């Protein structure tokens, strides 16, 4: 196997391995987002949009420096998006015809500039405070594809195989295989990822690494850095002009004259060197005068001006979107009530500037409650994470989302800080509630609430005590909404009312200032704090009970008959 393939196998395995680690509650999962932090477009775009020199992004600077020295090795050897496309490429069957003309650099120039336009658009929009990084960042795409598309597919595939194999074993009297129960994950907006996944596959049929050579804005940035790297492709006089390297270069970086290279397009995959029949190619320091091809085309001025304008207009349109949290006249902010951000998310504007929509938090979330959205947060918020409590609650003893966030859009809070984050508040939809509407006995929301934020009180006209939310005890974790036994929409739902989001400083202190009392019950011993409503013994402690005797009776479980 060629050295590039070996290297790619290692780097992609590392990427997938770290992604699998996300959400496993490993003590220090600080490495999970490492690959994302290598992405130069995440680094540059995020810093521009947020004016925050996020120190976690310095690895992308290292990538840029390496590129200056030895060219786009990141693209050819490390980038998981590139490797994924190479896997596609291995699947695609190409006609065996002489491509030494069609694959030459000269024949592939125009489309190449698209990535530069894309890059300019992202930079300009970023300067205007709108992050479009998520549309172009190869690491964002790769994380989404592997974490939110392929990972759930693998899990359901695994479960299906367990059933098939397990039934075979069961027929032989051994049902142990069937008891392997892998977790299952579901994600919304799958179409977004799937469409991109399919498109990139189809484009690979047109040309290998189509995304990398024509569209990737990170590739564009690295192309600017690799026009004259110290180590670069050299062709010696032994060259017999056979044209094989021209025909097979995955990025069409070689001109019709095989001794000339567009260094900025070369991803240093070393394929030309490996296939050269006379070993005329080396990657080394420039010897004497090097031939730089004339068709060293970078985008023209007019085109750059167009992309500049496109960036300005895009940023403008997004800025004027009705959902943009910039505040309307009179201070009105239009935000969907159920746009509940993960615990520790920065204030909405800064959050959207920093969030690169990689989906690492969603992959990591052990209860599956973090979900991507379409347009609930406007054009700017596409694919950003929200809590969907009906699907899962926010686990009390978990801070995985902040742990894996590469840009700090979700802060990495210690557990005790995270437990003091108010993400929103629960409210009771009385028309849906079994007690309020049908006067039936139901205490589920109270029983599952990890923070004792519900109070059941006698209400005129009802036999049964009815639920009330004690707002300053509610963190908006959504256990109540998740376990509410009503079919369809829950009778108790979380919305953003009262949410607290701090860009810096302590949530514990802020909660104290605001008079919030968040005390997680101590009877949660497991690592996630996950309990179903069966697991709680406490009975409505918050009841105001008139007489002492009545109280002692009420403290007994209803399963006892006491005369």
């Amino acid at each position: 196997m060629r050295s590039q393939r070996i290297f790619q196998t290692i780097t992609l395995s590392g990427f997938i391995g770290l992604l699998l680690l996300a959400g496993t509650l490993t003590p220090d999962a600080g490495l999970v987002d490492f690959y994302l932090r290598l992405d130069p477009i995440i680094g540059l775009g995020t810093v521009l949009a947020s004016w925050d020199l996020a120190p976690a992004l310095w690895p992308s600077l290292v990538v840029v420096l390496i590129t200056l020295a030895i060219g786009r090795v990141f693209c050819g050897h490390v980038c998981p998006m590139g490797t994924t496309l190479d896997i596609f490429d291995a699947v695609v069957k190409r006609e065996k015809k002489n491509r030494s003309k069609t694959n030459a650099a000269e024949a592939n120039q125009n489309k190449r500039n698209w990535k530069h336009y894309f890059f300019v658009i992202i930079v300009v929009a970023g300067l205007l405070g709108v992050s479009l990084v998520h549309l172009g960042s190869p690491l964002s795409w790769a994380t989404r594809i592997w974490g939110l598309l392929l990972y759930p597919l693998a899990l359901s595939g695994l479960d299906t195989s367990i059933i098939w194999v397990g039934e075979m074993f069961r027929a032989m009297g051994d049902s142990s295989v069937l008891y392997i129960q892998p977790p299952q994950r579901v994600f919304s907006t799958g179409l977004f990822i799937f469409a991109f996944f399919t498109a990139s596959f189809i484009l690979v049929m047109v040309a290998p690494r189509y995304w990398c050579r024509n569209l990737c804005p990170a590739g564009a940035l690295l192309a600017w850095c690799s026009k004259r790297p110290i180590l670069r492709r050299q062709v010696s006089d032994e060259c017999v002009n056979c044209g094989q390297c021209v025909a097979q270069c995955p990025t069409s970086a070689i001109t019709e004259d095989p001794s000339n290279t567009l260094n900025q397009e070369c991803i240093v995959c070393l394929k030309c060197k490996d296939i050269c029949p006379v070993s005329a190619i080396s990657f080394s320091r420039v010897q004497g005068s090097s031939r730089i091809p004339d068709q060293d085309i970078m985008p023209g001025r007019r085109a750059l001006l167009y992309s500049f304008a496109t960036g300005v207009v895009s940023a403008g349109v997004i800025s004027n979107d009705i959902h943009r949290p910039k505040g309307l006249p009179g201070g009105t902010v239009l935000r969907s009530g159920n746009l509940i951000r993960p615990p520790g998310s920065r204030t909405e504007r800064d959050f959207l500037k920093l969030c690169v929509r990689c989906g690492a938090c969603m992959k990591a979330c052990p209860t599956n409650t973090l979900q991507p959205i379409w347009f609930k947060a406007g054009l700017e918020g596409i694919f950003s994470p929200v809590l969907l409590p009906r699907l899962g609650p926010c686990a009390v003893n978990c801070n995985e989302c902040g742990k894996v966030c590469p840009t700090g859009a979700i802060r990495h809070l210690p557990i005790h800080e995270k437990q003091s984050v108010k993400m929103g508040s629960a409210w009771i939809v009385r028309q849906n509630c079994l007690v309020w509407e049908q006067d039936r006995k139901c205490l589920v929301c109270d029983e599952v609430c990890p923070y004792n934020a519900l109070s059941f009180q006698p209400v005129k006209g009802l036999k049964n005590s009815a639920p009330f939310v004690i707002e300053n005890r509610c963190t908006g974790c959504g256990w109540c909404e998740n376990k509410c036994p009503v079919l369809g929409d829950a009778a108790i739902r979380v919305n953003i009312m009262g949410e607290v989001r701090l860009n810096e400083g302590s949530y514990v202190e802020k909660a104290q200032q605001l008079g919030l009392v968040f005390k997680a019950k101590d009877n949660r011993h497991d690592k996630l704090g996950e309990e179903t409503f069966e697991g709680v013994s406490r009975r409505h402690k918050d009841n105001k009970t008139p007489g002492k005797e009545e109280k002692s009776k009420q403290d007994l479980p209803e399963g006892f008959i006491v005369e």
Partner: protein
Amino acid sequence: MSKMIDRREFVKGSLITSTALMTTAGAGIIAPSNIHASAPDLIIARGNDPSKNTRAAVDALGGISRFVKPGAKVAIKPNMSFARGPNQASNTNPHVVAEVARMCHEAGASKISVLDYVLHSPEDCMRLSKIPEACRSIPNTVVNTVQISRLFREVEVPNGEQFKSMRAISDVLDADVMISTPVGKSHGSAGVSLSMKGMMGWIYDRGSFHSRYNLHDAVVDMVSVLKPHLVVIDGTRILTTGGPSGPGKVMKLDLVIASTDMVAADAQMVSLGTWYGRKFKPNQVRHIRKAAERGLGRMDLDKLNIREIKV
């Protein structure tokens, strides 16, 4: 599914014919008078070794071979739903479960499945309850948690008042013998959680027991189908408050109860224990009273043949 019922009925029937003398009220088919005077209805074994208590209690009841025939498939229901250690009394003492499994193996059981639909994280429950650890050396025995719907299947509840069918663990429905090995513990809704309430760890949709149905009636509906052939209650120590999850007040009793009658066993545990700081009679627990009224067993302890043994 109906095929499965037939098979179980068939096995049950053949057990009865082949061991007619040994069969007592526990099977629920023959009238509950004592055909065999020497087999008591209920055993209380006291001593400070849970394993020995367990073996002595089951032996005094007529031995495990009364229930487990060579080649039989056995399902054992422990309490191991919570990520807590044995001393906290939220889960069954691992030695009690292991001793029951060991006796089943000695009687020639072909497969012994210890199964529970756990509430806390499965790995933590397995590790901290120490039940898998205690059962590891016993041949043909597997300890598994169950949390995925495909391992359950629909079963009819012909005499159900609240529901006419439910989903229960397939391997349990396919088993020839069901053995319940609960710990004695309090329960925030049901009052106590013993052999009958504990069976909720073998069904899928227990949420509806709390929300849609009356819990106490629903438990009785459930055990009209998931009716254990043998009950071994772990009273080594009991959780008198804070159940089912704990932590709560733990009380040492150093005993094990064995019976073929789940209602009698639960009734006996209620009257031996102290719950929420006070004593209760069996008929003060709604689901126990209901089960007795519906003829699923007896709670009139004073009329039962109960033998206490010192181990």
